[in-house]
């Protein structure tokens, strides 16, 4: 494999403490190395350019049956964004739910190299992996939804954490998953009976446990199994005014699990969980309260779920929340309640500047990212496509790095939202170093991806080079130039191969699918009782349930030694 030497770039590598130093990066056999043969190596002149590790996205719905159902119900979304094939790339469509290939190309053009698909019903695992196989240019992993899974709930009800851990280990292998995803714990099981839970201490029907028990139980299980990521949590009462109280209670509940100062949970798209006020009319931001808590605690990480003003499609396993959205908007929607191990819903959503609620939501996301002082605690996402499509990320980067950009957008928003917004009082502007944290280093660290998000020796040779010269370009003032630069990488290098040059795909590669192979102390046995339950309750046979090895095109099993 060719050797590459990236010369003289301004390198931002927060995990190794490198802040804009002018240095060379050497690549050999798909890894970062100390040095290469300067005679033979292909040289990339990065003088005057910004060099960062390849982008890592901690939360983006890019594959699976809910994504695909979203594609099916939105022909009008595709018709406005048709992508033609080229000699190298395949045809496809956008806009809010791009086809798999277009997803890969667009991420790659922005300098991203790793994405996490955060929501997979175990029953849809095979489908999810088939789609992940078809997403080129990126390494990826997927998180099975286990927060409302009967076997987990039964074990937690019995208080058998070890049994629960062994079962989760089996589920990771069975679904080829990477982390424990929990959505509206307890609420989804209740939704099967047309109900929901409204606080973390409501009782889940038929199981006699509470959302608190589920979250804390699975956080403990996560620790027992030594999983690289924490539990990945979508809170109760998401999207409901006043829910910041629930979010605070959730974080307080998880304090009991945190013993070593390390994060024990990741609350995703926290913007949707930071609403104050008691109805849509007086909705206001709960960002101050949430950020104050986070600034004083270290057991949580968050991601933004930043609103982009666009016509997008929301999709989540949180069926009851999507039902609320349907009641608000009256638009077409899809719901699933009982077949899979979770629930689910999909509904188109148009976020408008002139809507007081949407504009306030937009403000909340940015307030959180700016008020939380430590960039290692909150990462940049849109919860694609829920709050906006991922290829609008450069807009968020501009808002984060430039007060001028924020105020320019705020000026176009609904008057009521302008009045309530905290943004005019926040002067913080993220530096390129901090930007590298919220878009790659922090995410890779939270995910426990050892070879990602940094450019140290031995790391995967995933590199993004942007046309930003930190010595001459003030990104806070010239935010439009920076926005353009982040939308179209000068080079994206994936596993040591140049895949994007000047914002165009020059080579297509298959990414790897990472999954956890958990080694437990004793072999996990599947009892007759479980097989009987499969026969009775599931729509597939037990034998057809697991994702077999051949389903994953380029697998990368990460072995984890569990302490049970």
């Amino acid at each position: 494999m060719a050797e590459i030497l990236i010369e003289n770039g301004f390198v931002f590598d927060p995990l190794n403490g490198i802040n804009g130093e002018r240095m060379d990066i050497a690549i050999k056999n798909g890894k970062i190395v100390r040095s290469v043969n300067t005679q033979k190596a292909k040289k990339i002149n990065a003088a005057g350019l910004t060099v960062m590790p390849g982008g890592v996205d901690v939360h983006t719905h890019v594959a699976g049956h809910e994504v695909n159902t979203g594609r099916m119900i939105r022909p009008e979304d595709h018709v406005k964004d048709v992508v033609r094939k080229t000699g190298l790339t395949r045809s496809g469509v956008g806009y809010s739910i791009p086809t798999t290939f277009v997803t890969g190309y667009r991420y790659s053009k922005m300098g991203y190299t790793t994405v996490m698909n955060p929501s997979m019903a175990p029953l849809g695992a095979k489908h999810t992996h088939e789609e992940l196989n078809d997403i080129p240019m990126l390494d990826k992993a997927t998180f099975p939804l286990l927060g409302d899974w009967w076997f987990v709930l039964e074990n937690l009800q019995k208080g058998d954490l070890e049994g629960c851990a062994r079962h989760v280990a089996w589920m990771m292998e069975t679904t080829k998953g990477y982390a424990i995803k929990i959505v509206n714990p307890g609420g989804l099981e209740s939704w099967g009976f047309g109900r929901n839970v409204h606080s973390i201490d409501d009782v889940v029907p038929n199981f006699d446990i509470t959302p608190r028990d589920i979250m804390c139980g699975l956080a403990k299980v996560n620790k027992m199994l030594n999983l690289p990521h924490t539990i990945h949590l979508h809170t109760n009462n998401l999207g409901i005014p006043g829910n910041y109280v629930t979010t605070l209670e959730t974080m307080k509940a998880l304090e009991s699990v945190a013993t070593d100062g390390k994060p024990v949970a990741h609350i995703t798209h926290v913007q949707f969980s930071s609403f104050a006020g008691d109805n849509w009319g007086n909705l206001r931001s709960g960002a101050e309260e949430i950020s104050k808590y986070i600034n004083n605690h270290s057991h949580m990480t968050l991601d933004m779920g930043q609103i982009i003003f666009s016509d997008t499609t929301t999709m989540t396993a949180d069926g009851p929340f999507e039902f609320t959205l349907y009641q608000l908007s009256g638009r077409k929607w899809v719901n699933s309640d009982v077949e899979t191990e979770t629930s689910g819903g999909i509904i188109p959503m148009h976020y408008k500047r002139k809507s007081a609620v949407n504009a306030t939501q937009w403000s909340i996301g940015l307030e959180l990212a700016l008020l939380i002082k430590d960039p290692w605690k909150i990462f940049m996402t849109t919860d694609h496509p829920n709050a906006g499509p991922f290829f609008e990320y450069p807009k968020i980067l501009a808002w984060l790095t430039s007060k001028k950009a924020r105020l320019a957008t705020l000026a176009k928003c609904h008057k009521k939202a302008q009045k309530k917004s905290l943004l005019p009082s926040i002067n913080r502007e993220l530096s390129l170093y901090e930007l590298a944290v919220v878009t790659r280093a922090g995410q890779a660290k939270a995910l426990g991806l050892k070879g990602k998000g940094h450019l140290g020796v031995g790391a995967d040779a995933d590199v993004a080079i942007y046309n930003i010269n930190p010595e001459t370009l003030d990104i806070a003032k010239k935010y439009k130039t920076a926005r353009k630069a982040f939308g179209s990488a000068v080079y994206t290098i994936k596993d040591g191969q140049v895949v994007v040059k000047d914002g165009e795909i020059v080579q297509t590669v298959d990414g790897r699918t990472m999954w956890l192979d958990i080694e437990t102390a004793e072999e996990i046995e599947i009892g007759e009782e479980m097989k009987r339950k499969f026969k009775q309750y599931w729509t597939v046979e037990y034998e057809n349930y697991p994702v077999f090895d051949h389903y994953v095109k380029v697998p990368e099993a990460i072995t984890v030694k569990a302490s049970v």
Partner: protein
Amino acid sequence: MIVLTPLGKFRFPVHAECINPDVFKEKSVAEIASLSVWEGNRKKKLGDLFKIEEVSDETLGITINGDVSKVRRVGQGMKAGEIVINGNAGMHLGEKMAGGKITVNGNAGGWTGSSMKKGLIEIHGDASDYLASPYRGSTDGMKGGRIVVDGNVGSDSGCYLRGGVIIVRGKAGPFLGFHISKGVIYVEKSAGNRLGASMTGGKIVVSGAIDELMPTFTIAGVKAKVKIDETFKAQGPFYVFLGDLAEKGNGKLFVSKNSNSHLKQYEKFL
């Protein structure tokens, strides 16, 4: 004025959104000929498919002489000027148009005037399905302007109408005015079933016979004539129905009394 004549019979669908007075404005014939279009999966130049001539008069207009039923998206998004098609027109004619006039001396394809905002479309033949309706899945219906069809229209016409006037001199297919919330649709002859399904507002006036009335409409009276627009009143008498009650709708459906004796039973509820 620019005159376009097809150089031959089209074998494949052509996407030619560049045939638009706004695009042709202040361009020479050579520049117009070099505008790109897609024929099937091949990128071509407009000059490869059409003979392009400039006729001396200074009007901002385009005339197409010949059958262009395979040419799609003519006049898409146009804001001013005039297009005359002497022949059949293809799909998505005048889609999202925001001004100007399109005349078709022939038949028009599906989605003619889809999601249009302003302007005038006159079709002197038949129009196919989805006249003025948004693309599949979209609720972005026609907002304003006027469409007049001398012949018949196909199914799903005038869906999600939010303003403007549609006048059909012939017959209309099923699902006419599905989910309309504002605006007026007038049909001189008969209309197919599921008429006005899910309508929440607006007016649909049928001077001919209808196959059936949805059970979710309720009778509100009989009216001698109905105003269609400033220039035209339809002569009745008409039964007036309100609906669609399944959507808690407040739309008005006017159906000719004389042509629909099977609706006589409703009179007892008056």
